[in-house]
């Protein structure tokens, strides 16, 4: 299995970036890749309940559906801890399908040969 790393920095303020990142991530899963989406900067908010529900871009499925499909098919979500904590967000609201992981985990995954995309 080959690896795909997707760096996502945007939330609602750039609905297109958030949406397309998950579209490509789902395509990666469908192609048999091990996929990690690294949520950092504003994108950390995407794991909060209800936050993604209002994101929908013409031409694509709503982000809520894309996210559900991503999780259902084994996609991994990593959250940048300082980005999350620095925004005063509540860790108790993070679903068990997402985990906190930072620079060292990212570097290891990339060093293992993961292709990377950034949105």
């Amino acid at each position, binding site marked *: 299995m080959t690896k795909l790393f997707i760096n996502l920095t945007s939330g609602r303020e750039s609905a297109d970036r958030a949406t397309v990142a998950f579209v490509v991530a789902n395509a990666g899963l469908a192609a048999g890749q091990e996929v990690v989406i690294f949520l950092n900067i504003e994108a950390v908010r995407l794991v909060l309940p209800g936050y993604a529900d209002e994101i929908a871009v013409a031409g694509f499925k709503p982000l809520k559906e894309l996210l559900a499909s991503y999780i259902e098919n084994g996609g991994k979500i*990593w*959250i*940048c*801890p*300082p980005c*999350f*904590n620095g925004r005063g967000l509540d*860790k108790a609201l993070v679903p068990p399908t997402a*985990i*906190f*992981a*930072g*620079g*060292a*985990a990212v*570097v*290891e995954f990339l*060093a293992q040969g993961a292709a990377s995309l950034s949105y």
Partner: protein
Amino acid sequence: MTQIEEPTIEATLDTGPLGCGDLILMIFKTMRSIPPGGVLLVMAYDDGAAMDIPAWCRSTGNALLRADSTGRPARFHIQRRNT
């Protein structure tokens, strides 16, 4: 019952509020002051430490002798590689 031997700790590092790359950089710098084969005890409060510290150990060839992420701080015993 087998007694588990406690590793001899060369130094202890309390990483405080550091996380992500800052946390790893501090461990990296501190590890340089540890002699080869010596053990550094890292106490970390960052939620990503449970992923990041084992990943850093695997990437650098330092041995993660013990990891306990159940409490805060999480505790990691890292043995500096010999070369």
